């Protein structure tokens, strides 16, 4: 069946190709532009200023790349972009029924042949834009391929300022306590459990999204979360018009700031050269999925100030559909996901040095730095930071698109069994996978802040005032908070010039009241405050939630 269809499209393609070769040379397979359709443009450089101009002109960023941006703008706005001095090239005007994808390929073309209804354009090194109205276009792609489905509308209109999480620096007592908690957690990671889970996932034969075994694998994960006593749910979605699958998500609610979430994710679906028949996907990505299950087991037994989300997504191999669905819903609901750690292929270090790449985009660089700083001391494998917005080939990219800080932990090697029926447990290095899980666990636990014996202060509010003379002005910030339920000796007040710190302690001795005035500040900037509580033995709590100086004005 599939082969006949392929043949049919091939000949149809040949026919179209013949047609196109007689068409004027100036029309290189780009759909005709009509005024009412938006235009896809490639703009360089991918600067914040460019994004502002595009958004102001009514456009959206479709894809943020290493050296350019792919944007969708109303046709009428093109002259405005030109007036603003932007340099861009038109990539075409999406026709109804066309689907757009990014394809990774270092080959001269990602296609076996070029049928007329599949169009390719090189955006930058190794990154192709593909658009087609042919639902069977995957048959024309050279194996193995990596795909990302693009959404031409509904994306986050530009990058957000990533929100760094509260840090624990400076609070010596709680820091020491956090470190000992994290040490204990890291020691609990079990190689044998990883092996068991990878094998269980591999035994579903195929986890190709859209197939029944893939859904069964989803049920397996849901059940495992349930056994840990976690609130877990399936998050169903539809992709490519008529296929359906589910993300499986569980949450460990935070104790101090449950609205803030550290999310760890992995795709549980798989693919191969015969995806309907066999796709064991042991490295890709039973390894990441098993890591989530193992982290869930360990983290569920500990208390954290922030919530921890455990997300297993599906249809990644089809083009990141599951994570795109989750990330978009999260953004629409205003979910405060402070960091996303995506694990995809963490068990095949190859013959080279044992290296786990930590991939981020520019907005997530702080997260990559933080991940490495926290996790490296616990593991022998080397954590290598890679900042490249064009590395969109896994689920972290869906979170980048929604303006969240996200990174991908991935082995720094070329797995020869990648996307094949031979990607099985025997080929894996589980000691490497164990260390990768330990690193991720340490970073996630640190980001979510283990709860200390003394509760962090709550109810911090800030109002600011500016006092002005003719020529000068100063800002005064008035803080107040709720008295801790536990007996405390006082509170320390900290100030930062950036959200998330580093924080400077303002109180030499703990202040005993529940208010504080910070005077003579620059009036033209914002300040950020957190508190700690200190008990009679001098032990200090974690930081409270952060407030901006004018948050309650």
């Amino acid at each position, binding site marked *: 069946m599939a082969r006949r269809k392929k043949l049919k499209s091939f000949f149809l393609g040949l026919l179209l190709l013949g047609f196109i070769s007689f068409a004027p040379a100036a029309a290189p397979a780009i759909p005709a532009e009509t005024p009412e359709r938006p235009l896809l443009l490639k703009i360089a450089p991918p600067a914040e200023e460019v994004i502002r101009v595009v958004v102001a002109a009514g456009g959206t960023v479709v894809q943020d790349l290493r050296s350019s941006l792919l944007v969708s703008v109303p046709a009428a706005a093109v002259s405005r972009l030109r007036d603003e001095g932007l340099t861009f090239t038109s990539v075409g005007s999406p026709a109804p029924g066309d689907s757009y994808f990014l394809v990774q390929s270092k080959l001269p073309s990602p296609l076996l042949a070029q049928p007329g209804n599949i169009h390719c354009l090189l955006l930058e090194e190794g990154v192709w834009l593909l658009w087609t109205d042919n639902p069977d276009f995957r048959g024309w792609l050279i194996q193995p391929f990596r795909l990302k489905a693009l959404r031409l509308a509904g994306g986050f209109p530009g990058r957000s300022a990533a929100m760094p999480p509260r840090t624990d620096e400076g609070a010596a007592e709680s820091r020491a306590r956090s470190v000992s908690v994290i040490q204990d957690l890291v020691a609990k990671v079990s190689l044998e459990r990883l092996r068991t889970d990878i094998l269980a996932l591999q035994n579903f034969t195929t986890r190709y999204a859209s197939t029944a075994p893939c859904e069964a694998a989803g049920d397996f994960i849901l059940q495992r979360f349930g056994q840990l006593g976690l609130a877990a749910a399936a998050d169903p979605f539809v992709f490519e018009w008529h296929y359906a699958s589910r993300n499986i998500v569980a949450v460990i609610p935070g104790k101090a700031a449950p609205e803030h979430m550290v999310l760890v994710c992995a795709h549980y679906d798989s693919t191969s050269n015969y995806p309907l028949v066999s796709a064991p996907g042991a490295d890709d990505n039973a390894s990441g999925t098993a890591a989530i299950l193992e982290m869930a087991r360990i983290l569920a037994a500990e208390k954290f100030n922030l919530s921890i989300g455990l997300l297993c997504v599906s249809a990644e191999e089809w083009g990141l559909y599951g994570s795109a669905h989750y990330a978009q819903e999260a953004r629409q609901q205003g979910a405060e996901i402070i960091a996303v750690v995506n694990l995809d292929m963490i068990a095949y270090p190859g013959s080279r040095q044992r290296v786990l790449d930590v991939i981020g985009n520019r907005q997530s660089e702080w997260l990559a730095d933080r991940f490495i700083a926290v996790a490296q001391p616990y593991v022998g494998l080397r954590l290598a930071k890679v900042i490249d917005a064009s590395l969109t080939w896994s689920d972290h990219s869906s979170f980048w698109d929604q303006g969240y800080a996200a990174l991908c932990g991935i082995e720094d090697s070329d797995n020869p069994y990648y996307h094949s029926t031979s990607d099985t447990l025997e080929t894996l290095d589980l000691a490497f996978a164990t260390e990768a899980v330990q690193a991720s666990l340490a970073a996630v636990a640190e980001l979510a802040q283990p709860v200390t014996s003394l509760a962090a202060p709550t109810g911090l509010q800030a*109002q*600011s*005032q*500016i*006092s*002005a*003379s*003719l*020529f*000068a*002005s*100063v800002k*005064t910030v*008035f803080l107040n908070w709720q008295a801790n339920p536990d007996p405390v000796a006082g509170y320390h007040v900290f100030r930062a010039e950036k959200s998330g710190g580093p924080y400077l302690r303002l109180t030499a001795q703990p202040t005993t009241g529940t208010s504080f*005035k910070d*005077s*003579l500040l*620059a*009036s*033209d900037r914002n300040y950020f405050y957190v508190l700690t509580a200190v008990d009679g033995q001098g032990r200090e709590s974690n930081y409270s939630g952060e407030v901006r100086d004018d948050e309650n*004005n």
Partner: protein
Amino acid sequence: MRTINVKFYRRRAFWPALFLGLFFVSLPAVTGAVEKPRQRFFIGLAAGYLYPQQGDFREIYSKAIWPVELQLELAVGRKISVFSAARYMETSGNTVLLFPGQPAEAYALNWRMATLRLGVNYRLSSSRFVPFVGAGASASFYREQWLDAPLTTEGRKAGFFVQAGGRYRLQRRWHALVQLEYASVPAGSGPRGQVNLGGLSLFLGLLAGIF
């Protein structure tokens, strides 16, 4: 929060002008008051009331401002005279709040300004009462100081003024002066927008004809 470090009180221009002024004030006594029907050179002292043109200025320095001035005037024709003047004013005030709904925080302020004025008057008659109109340019040296915070802004700004007034001869040598003046001294921008240090002022004074 910008602080302009012009120590104008230590500048050369201020003290010689003051010294020169005092010298001329004492001149009649020294020279034994030579009587001439009409003097061409006058020296005088005046004090007045300033109404700052800018609302911010009035709000911050809400107390009345009483400038004092030393004037030198030289008639260069039947109708025209040139004059120069040194003026000084000082007042105190309090900062204002930019966010009215929020908790208040006020700081005490001190304001000083010295102005050197140079201009031309046109006399409208030559009887005992002499109305006149005039105009000229000014250089103002100011200092705004926060008394309980380490914040001081100093600066020097040029401006212009127009004035009208009258002079009444009390005796051969002594004249009473009344003078209404509008001055503009644009002084750049502050926290609430453009600042102008000028305004409307009314002066009363006494002039002595020297020669």
